[in-house]
């Protein structure tokens, strides 16, 4: 078996970011929020370890059930850090290509520009499997949660340090 993993593919990373920004109503979010959502986009079954607000328990259970011996993640936080480097390239690339605002990016915020996406990509969005659609909806709901503080996404996921946040 050859080694392909979407996490190590820049192109798929671009796909994921564009998909998330497309799905979120404001088409924008904090950079750290994007990073976190992207992680769960790649590894939805690891959401079983996250303390989620009440309404999301059913979804959480169904994603967690997708864990198998073919998609084990030993150290989520470690992997998250490694993904960070790729993340930076992806967002810069998108800014260079004009799909997200460069000045806001400098402020650690990703905001979609009015520039439309190519047709093929939008078709690909529509062609996604039902399970993927569910996942995206789930991630959108998650994006509404606060990022900072001890009930924030950082704290709940444990992927980023939250204790020094200024809330």
């Amino acid at each position, binding site marked *: *078996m*050859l080694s*392909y*993993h*979407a996490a190590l*593919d*820049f*192109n*798929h990373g*671009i*796909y994921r970011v*564009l998909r998330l920004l497309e799905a979120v109503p404001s088409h924008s979010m904090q950079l750290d929020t994007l990073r976190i959502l992207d992680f769960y986009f790649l590894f939805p079954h690891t959401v079983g370890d996250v303390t989620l607000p009440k309404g999301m328990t059913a979804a959480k259970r169904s994603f967690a059930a*997708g864990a*198998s*011996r*073919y*998609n084990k993640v030993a150290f989520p936080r470690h992997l998250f850090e490694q993904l960070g*480097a*790729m993340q*930076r*390239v*992806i967002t*810069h*690339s998108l800014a*260079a*290509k004009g799909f997200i605002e460069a000045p806001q990016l400098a402020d650690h915020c990703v905001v979609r520009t009015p520039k439309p996406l*190519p047709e*093929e*990509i939008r078709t*690909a969005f529509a062609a*996604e*499997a039902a399970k*993927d659609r569910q996942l995206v909806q789930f991630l959108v709901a998650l994006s509404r949660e606060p990022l900072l503080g001890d009930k924030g996404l950082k704290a709940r996921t444990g992927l980023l340090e939250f204790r020094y946040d200024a809330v």
Partner: protein
Amino acid sequence: MTRFDPALRLLRMVVIKSGQIAWDEEFHPGVNIIRSDGNSGGKSSIADLIFYGLGGDFADWKDEAGSCDSVYCEVMLSGSLVTLRRDIDRLVRQPMWVFFGGFDDSQSAGAVGWQKYPYTRAGARESFTQVVFRALGMPEVPSEAEGNLTMHQLLRLMYVDQMTPVDRIFRLESNDSPLRRQAVGDVMMGLFDNRIYPAQLRLRERQKSYDAATTQLAALTSMLGRVDNDYKPEALEMKRLSLVEKRRELLELITNLKRARFAPPAGSEADAGLLHKMQADLDKLNTDIAELKLSIGQITYEIADAEELIADTERTLAQLAQADTVRGTLGPVALDFCPNCLGPLKEVSSPGTCRLCHEPTEPEEDRSRYARMRNELSMQLKESVHLQARRKGKQKELKDRASALEVMRNLVATEFLSISESFVSEADSQIDVLSTQVGYIDHQLVDIERQSKIASEVDTLRAHKAALNAEISELKDAIGTWERQRAQRQTASYDGVRQATAEILSKDTQSEAEFTTESDVYFNFAEDRISINGKYGFSASSLTVIRNAFHLALHWRSCVDQGFNYPRFLLMDNIEDKGMVMERSQNFQNLIVDVSKNIKVEHQIIFTTSMLDPSLDVPEYTVGEKYTFAKKSLKIGRAVQ
């Protein structure tokens, strides 16, 4: 001369006042006379000092004696030379200092060697009574009687003093008790057997144990519920063994019946063969079914695992497609900086070179790479799906086979059971009956266990009771014997004293003509009185003579009967008291001397008189000077405190 112990003899007495000797005289064995011309010469003071110095409790001093500091008595206590010292005080219960040695030695020794003892025992500290008694060799008394038997109490019987009413035996004191006087008298006359009291205590305790054992025995025998001897351990053991044997037999029967359960009854061999075959078939069927189930389980697991792989592969394929779309539409990712070190990347010198690793790139290479990967994954997916279908097919086949076998097995089992049902139920009911019997035997065995325990306890108790009984009889006999001996001794001793008293009295120049050697003398320590021929009323002078005669007789008997504990010492103050005429007194004085002469053992009699028979006024008998009113006994200087 022989000495009967315990023996007390005063050798010397020294009275000190203000560092000066107020009185210092030596005494000799036998008769000692302290005399004065007329009264108030201080004789009684000397007698009181002797009484006090030897351990009597006294504080009612006359002025002269009371002004003195201390009195020393050098004594022989059953052959041991000891010096006693007591300080004179107005308080009672003064302690005593003891020096084991003579007076002179005690003085040159200074403070060394003197031991102080309290009047009463205090914890570990002994009283001086205990010390003196030990030196005298007085017999031990039980601690309950210790308070009654002090040196002071003994001296009450040895000191015939002036202040006690003449009709009494003991020196008078308040808070006296008849029991105490009786005890003192008994001890002095050697009638106290210190074996009796402890034996009586033990007898009482043994009787209590015996009664307790009797009660317990009654309870146990009633628990056994029998009056006959069936609860003997041997009989119980035999019963138990027979029950165990019967139980074993029954169990064997049951086992045989169980084994024979599936054996056909005699006379149906044809059925036997069939049943046998059916049994074999059943076994094979069950084994096959089990194996199939095992395989089904394995395949089910593999199917689940493959599902996961397929799902993962499908997902990867979808992601590949998405990535390819992005690559195709947005072009290559513009890397301005190195993702590893985050440093800026230099512009490529020539197009067609990777900005990162500087290898030549093929713009279409990406796409072909994606295509190749998609190809491979698709092939894998196809294969996995194919294999999965086969697995599911196999699973279905196995399940079908298993159900078919199960159906067949159930059929065979039912038929088998119906054929063997008949003798199964018969054997079962028999097994039931036998099992019940075994249960009953078990219950009986438990019962026997319990009974044999009780039986052995009963035996033990019986033996214990017998032992107790033997001891009780022994004790009763011993106590009886001792008490009889004591009574005998008492009669003998009392008779001796009574006769001696009568004899002495018969020699009195009496005014009453009743005193003969046949006079019936009665005395009682508890009652503290003496009667002659049943009569108590006599003149004061006669009573004095009777009293003196009694004490002299007691002293005399102690020198004859070695069993007496009376220390062969007598102190009489003013033997002519209460208006006795000179002749009578002097006659009595000679009586004393005669008695003393006839005594064959060491003894000492000290008496005081103001009308000494001149024939007795010799150094052999006298002690000190003849005291007068002007020249009193104690030399204390004129100014009296």
